[in-house]
């Protein structure tokens, strides 16, 4: 036990930042990719689902003094309902009217405007009612400690890994999951075979929004939260999704972990190498990753076959 303690103490704080950030980024990327697979539209309001989770966590802990991990459930439900509202009230009417892809993207942006407004109105209301700061809040004190470590440092990666595992089971071992995959691969054929495509899509939107909410609420336990946090995170989510290839959810998780770790650890390494002035260019990392992926490997990580890497690099530029 004593040796273990010693080992734990030596964990660099930046490693904690990196692991928590990367795990939650991968959950968000997974949700974005899942939505993209179903309706073929990148959801520009996906970041704000995380903000919803964040505000839920703040409300449950700082205002109602509930245990921190109890608020994962309302965060999941609220995030899921927000995603459902976007899918059922906004996107489905647009799709049924044959709206163009750009129209659908703008509709998700409009939804983002509404979410940001609602979240900020709620933040104002929250501060007025409970006299607790709701912008730039830090609520690490509500976290539990596991083995001398902050709980979120253990639970965030565990949750990300188990989510992927459960999703794997769902998509491969259950009738409903196989139906969902069929609905993604070929909606009209799946429809003819008696699979309720709309219900499958509705479920996947709910799930993606819920995972976004959970990710946001765990992020709130470690990083400084605000009602606009998720909206600012959107760039990293897109970058991770593009690096992951927007083809399947495993690529998304890989992209999320890769970019999350690179963003936090890479920034620190650059700061150590070149001096602290360079750390302000942290936003450049996801953008560069995005640009390099699109230029060299437009299909993303999942298209990487170790044997064919060089061929891919040669071909990638002209694709």
């Amino acid at each position, binding site marked *: 036990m004593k040796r273990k303690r010693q080992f734990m103490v030596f964990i660099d704080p930046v490693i904690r930042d990196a692991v928590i950030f990367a795990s939650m980024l991968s959950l968000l990327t997974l949700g974005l990719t899942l939505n993209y697979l179903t309706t073929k539209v990148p959801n*520009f309001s996906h970041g704000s689902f995380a903000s919803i989770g964040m505000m839920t966590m703040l409300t449950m802990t700082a205002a109602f003094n509930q245990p921190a991990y109890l608020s994962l459930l309302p965060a999941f439900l609220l995030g899921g309902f927000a995603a459902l509202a976007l899918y059922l009230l*906004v996107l489905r009417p647009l799709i049924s*009217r044959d709206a163009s892809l750009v129209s659908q993207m*703008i509709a998700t942006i*409009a939804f983002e*405007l509404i979410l940001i407004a609602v979240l900020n*109105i709620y933040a104002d209301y929250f501060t007025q009612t409970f006299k607790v700061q709701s912008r730039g809040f830090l609520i690490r004190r509500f976290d539990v400690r596991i083995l001398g470590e902050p709980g979120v440092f253990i639970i965030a990666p565990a949750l990300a890994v188990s989510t992927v595992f459960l999703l794997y089971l769902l998509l491969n071992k259950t009738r409903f999951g196989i139906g969902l995959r069929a609905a993604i691969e070929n909606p009209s054929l799946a429809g003819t075979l008696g699979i309720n495509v709309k219900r499958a899509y509705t479920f996947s939107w709910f799930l993606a929004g819920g995972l976004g909410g959970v990710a946001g609420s765990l992020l709130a336990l470690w990083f400084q939260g605000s009602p606009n946090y998720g909206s600012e995170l959107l760039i990293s989510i897109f970058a991770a999704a593009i690096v992951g290839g927007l083809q399947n959810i495993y690529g998304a998780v890989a992209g999320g972990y890769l970019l999350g770790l690179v963003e936090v650890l890479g920034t620190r390494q650059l700061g150590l190498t070149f001096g602290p002035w360079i750390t*302000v260019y942290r936003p450049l990392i996801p953008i560069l990753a*995005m640009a390099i992926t699109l230029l060299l490997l*437009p299909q993303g990580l999942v298209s990487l076959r170790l044997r064919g890497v060089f061929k891919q690099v040669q071909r990638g530029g002209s694709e």
Partner: protein
Amino acid sequence: MIDEQLIIFLSNVLAYVAIYLMVNVSLNFEYGFTGIPNFGKVLAVAGGAFVVGAVPGRILASQLNLFAGYRAVQDNPVLAECLSTLVQVKPKLMESIDYIEDNAVVVDCVRRVLVNDPLLSISLLVASVGLAALVGAGLGFIASYPSIRLREDYLAMTLLAMGEFLRQVGYLDRTLVGGTLGVAVPDPYGWLGVFRPYASTLIMLTVAVLFFLYVRAVTYSPAGRVLRAVRDSEMAAEVLGIDVVRVKQKVLVVSSMMAAVAGALWAFNSVAVIANTYDRFTWTFWPWVMVIIGGAGNNRGVLLGTLVFVILRQAILTYNYLLEPFIPFSIVWLDRLLFGIALIIVLIIRPQGIVPEKPTPAISFEKIRKMVQKS
């Protein structure tokens, strides 16, 4: 009191209509006519504004030898007057002056020089706007390069990311435009005295009308039909021998130039550049709202959309004290809520906007009638 408020309201409306018309016309050029979903409109606008924040003040100050400190510029009566009392408070200014640290001092001195020199002021304005246009063109090209060949959703995501990047760097890096505090900008309209705001608005309106007429002329020309061909069916356009990627790149470069000019003029109008005000809501999403509500692919629609949006929004902001008793939250969030809902409703019920796009005649009907009569 009421009259004064009305005048403020009207002058705000004019200024915002001018600036947003520039941005919207360029966005309509990209999206409405060519089909490029530029969700990073803010990039070029911020680029233009940052050029104005970073470059002209530095150049003028170094021309005046201001950075060498008070001792070096003592002989210049204008600068000596501007600095003499400050030097007693802050002795460091004797030896050296820094553009960011002592920004207020530098810009104040430069302004005093500009007030007495209309010719220098005008050339400053023209040169800065020109430089901003060049930078905007470069930004438009670089930002779209990785994804211009890919599908529009990839392009949209990349452009959005690129747009956010410049604001974040400007906000976090103090050396560019002063970071969180921002920088003041030399005032090229200062020599006009009390007419300054009118002159600035007039210049912006003129440029906006020029952009409007330019895009109108392009879209009525054969080149406009090329753009529409690219928008409506890329494959068909390629079959007809149109280099789709090149057309898109050209359109992005030209419209980014326009947006950068808009950003530069806006920075001169507000005589300050604060990086955080160049966010994606103000300079990407609002223009999209206006273009979509007005009617994309249609110059008159965009004009109408801009007018409706700006007047409504300014009315909300100016007369907020009338609304305040009825809504229990800060008025700043009301416009996002309202226009977000309005945008969704328009997209579902009337996707073509208030004024739908009409086919433009290849030649005017007058000419056709004459030709028919001749034959």
